[in-house]
């Protein structure tokens, strides 16, 4: 009772702070200085039509590198936590088979979903989407395979190889930027091209594609580790 009362008091305090923030909020009518810089210069400096993609990959590319590292660490810790004290030899729970329609549907839909994921991250500099969304869509294809056949196991070695190679290429493109362009993760190591075409925006499509592969491999490794556990 005391605990619930103190929680309510705490939440009322936080709610009062939020209400003060909300009442004092005045929406901007003009873009602030940083946003104006991005809006004016993105098309000429990076050649990308999607300004969010240009910010994520080029202007704040170092943040993206750290973010992918955090995701890698969390996937690795999930694997580590679930693998420790793993006893072999227990029988898996007898699961009912998935229906015939689901098996056929999985066979039909998995290539389509993989294709959509590749489309999303290759067109990341033109349309909404990019590496993170594409990676999540690739992992959704893995999830669909797992739903169609619960006993399916994924090759951990293949996932690890894809993950490491795409990480290496990401950092390698960044280092190329130091030597051939303005700095780390500068996208002007390749010609910028014309705005609005697929082969434009320098290195952004390449970097975003490898970010997508890396994110997809990390989510897939989480799914593979979780699906290897047994019912308690």
């Amino acid at each position, binding site marked *: 009772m005391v*605990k*619930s009362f103190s*929680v309510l008091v*705490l*939440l009322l305090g*936080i*709610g009062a702070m*939020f*209400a003060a*923030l*909300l009442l004092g*909020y005045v*929406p*901007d*009518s003009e*873009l*602030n200085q*940083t*946003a*104006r810089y*991005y*809006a*004016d210069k*993105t*098309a*000429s400096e990076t050649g990308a*039509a*999607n*300004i*969010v993609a240009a*910010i*994520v990959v080029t202007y*704040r590319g170092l*943040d*993206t590198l750290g*973010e992918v590292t*955090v*995701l890698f660490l*969390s*996937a690795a*810790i*999930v694997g580590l*936590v*679930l693998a420790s*004290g793993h006893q072999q030899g227990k029988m898996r729970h007898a699961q009912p088979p998935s229906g015939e329609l689901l098996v056929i549907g999985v066979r039909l839909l998995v290539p389509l979903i993989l294709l959509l994921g590749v489309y999303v991250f290759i067109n990341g500099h*033109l*349309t*909404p989407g990019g590496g*993170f969304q594409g990676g*999540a869509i690739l992992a959704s294809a893995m999830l669909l395979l797992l739903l169609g056949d619960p006993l399916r196991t994924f090759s951990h070695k293949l996932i690890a190889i894809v993950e490491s190679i795409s990480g290496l290429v990401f950092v390698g493109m960044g280092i190329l930027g130091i030597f051939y362009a303005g700095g780390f993760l500068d996208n002007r190591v390749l010609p910028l091209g014309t*705005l*609005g075409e697929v082969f434009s925006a320098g290195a952004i499509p390449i970097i975003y594609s490898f970010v997508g592969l890396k*994110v997809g491999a*990390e*989510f897939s490794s*989480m799914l593979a*580790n*979780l699906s290897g*556990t047994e019912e*308690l």
Partner: protein
Amino acid sequence: MAYIAMATGFILILIGLFGALTNRNILRMIVAFTVADTGVNMVIVAIGYMHGRTAPILDVAVSAAEAAARIIDPVPQALVLTAIVIGVGVTALMLAYTYKLYEKKRTLDIAQFTELKW
């Protein structure tokens, strides 16, 4: 419109905090955390919205020359984009620990885990 979305985000944060602080089941606490996560993301996106403007992507509808007058602030969107992906990683981590805790004690009640209590 931004006011309504921002108020909803704040209310979702409060709902999530209430759920995480008052529930005793670990899985319910994690669900409440994801609700609060969505609320935080919604507040940040609503701060970036400006009335009468459109998405920060250049195409035939918005040319590069008039971009500064027609698009909204792209920086909050870039922040939230990474925050959502990190949120899933954190959720998966919490769920993996839930599995291990259940394996040790065969219960999900947070009051049973008293090793660090004093």
